[in-house]
């Protein structure tokens, strides 16, 4: 069974709120950079960048981070782990980094991302933005700093974020039906 839990209008409101919260803590973003987690965090971060630009006219240092080589399930799952592109054209050393991903669940990809960021230098601080925070199944002690929506879901559910410009929806897909 598929059920929509967030419509575009709600996602848009959430993005506006997140943009305000980020500006509250980072003011003009002069020493801050956004790092989107490949592959799905890039879409959320594009939407956030647009918000920051349209609401506050702020241009932010932006890069994409791939965590494939730092994942802890290499050789443990049958699925091959195919890497994505990394694009970081600024120096991370001393920056305040904001990691962006669409769904936070077990927390393992964020753990891998924390390792991956360190390969590029020592940031001043690292924060985490997530559109959906799925509770009750965290496997590592990681919590988000900015949350779009908290969701209670069962283990065999699947939460999917469809990014289609003005048609963004968040689905919850219940198994086997």
């Amino acid at each position: 069974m598929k059920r929509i839990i967030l419509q575009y209008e709600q996602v848009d409101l959430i993005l506006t709120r997140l943009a305000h919260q980020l500006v509250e803590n980072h003011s003009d973003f002069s020493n801050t950079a956004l790092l989107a987690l490949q592959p799905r965090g890039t879409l959320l971060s594009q939407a956030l960048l647009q918000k920051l630009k349209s609401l506050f006219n702020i241009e932010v240092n932006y890069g994409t981070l791939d965590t494939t080589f730092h994942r802890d399930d290499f050789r443990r799952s049958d699925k091959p782990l195919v890497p994505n592109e990394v694009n970081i054209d600024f120096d991370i050393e001393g920056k305040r980094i904001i990691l962006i991903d669409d769904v936070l669940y077990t927390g393992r990809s964020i753990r891998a991302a924390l390792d991956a960021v360190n390969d590029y230098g020592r940031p001043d601080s690292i924060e985490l933005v997530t559109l959906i925070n799925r509770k009750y199944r965290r496997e590592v002690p990681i919590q988000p700093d900015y949350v779009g929506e908290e969701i209670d879901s069962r283990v065999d559910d699947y939460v999917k974020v469809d990014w289609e410009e003005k048609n963004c929806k968040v689905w919850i897909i219940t198994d086997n039906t």
Partner: protein
Amino acid sequence: MSALSTNHLLGIQNITSQDIKLILDTADSFKEVINRPIKKVPSLRDVTIANVFFENSTRTKISFELAEKRLSADVVNFSSSSSSVKKGETLIDTVNNILAMKVDMVVMRHPAPGAHQFLARHIDANIINAGDGTHEHPTQALLDAYSLRAELGDLTDKKIVIVGDILHSRVALSNIYCLQKMGAKVRVCGPPTLLPKYIGSLGVEVSNDLRESLEWCDAANMLRIQLERQEDKYFPSLREYSTQYGVTLPMLKSLKKEIVLMHPGPINRGVEITSEVADSDQSIILNQVENGVAARMAVLYLLANHK
């Protein structure tokens, strides 16, 4: 998402064009990794790799070792000169002894063509061919193809000439297979004595005219004259060879278009190419060396994932 079609890299002949594409695409990611401030990722931290070299090698061995270390694998090195091979141990026994110490992958160079195929049938580990006699040297072909793709883009219908000692060259054979699987047109060029008799049956063009071949091609791969493998005289003298088949800077500049020059190394400066050519803008010899580490990381990573 895709995976390799094989557990071993025995030769380019045994892998598909999708495999080649996957390896080269993955190498892109590793090229980014080796240009980071911290050039190391933890992917293979629970993998042990044995580098078993029954033949001398400097750059291939260093390149593999760096690739392994940058993937955080544990590495053991073995060379035949300091081993029980000298005491008469067989290949299977030697490798099984190494594997009994819980090694997951074996990177091997061996003078006998087909040694890797033989080994793959008898032992349980991922085997990577780092050169078997005059047969194949697949990772060299992959790094050559990767370097060429970076220079020329998609290789479909691109023209590549391989010049020199085709007869003794494992690089030539692997390159021919690899480039053809990527859709390129391949020609071999050299003195008749250094071209195998039936090389044309692989679907390559054959030429003895260097000048005309350079005009034809988009890129030229200048092979090293392998003096150590030549028991007979294949040409009167090195000087005569270099006059007929050596590339000089004036020759390169007089061509109608700018071509890319490669060399798998080690270079005999002044024989296959002059020093000015080796150090010119058109030569990508050092890029090849850098790309070698990235391409080998990709091969190790993808094979390790293929369990």
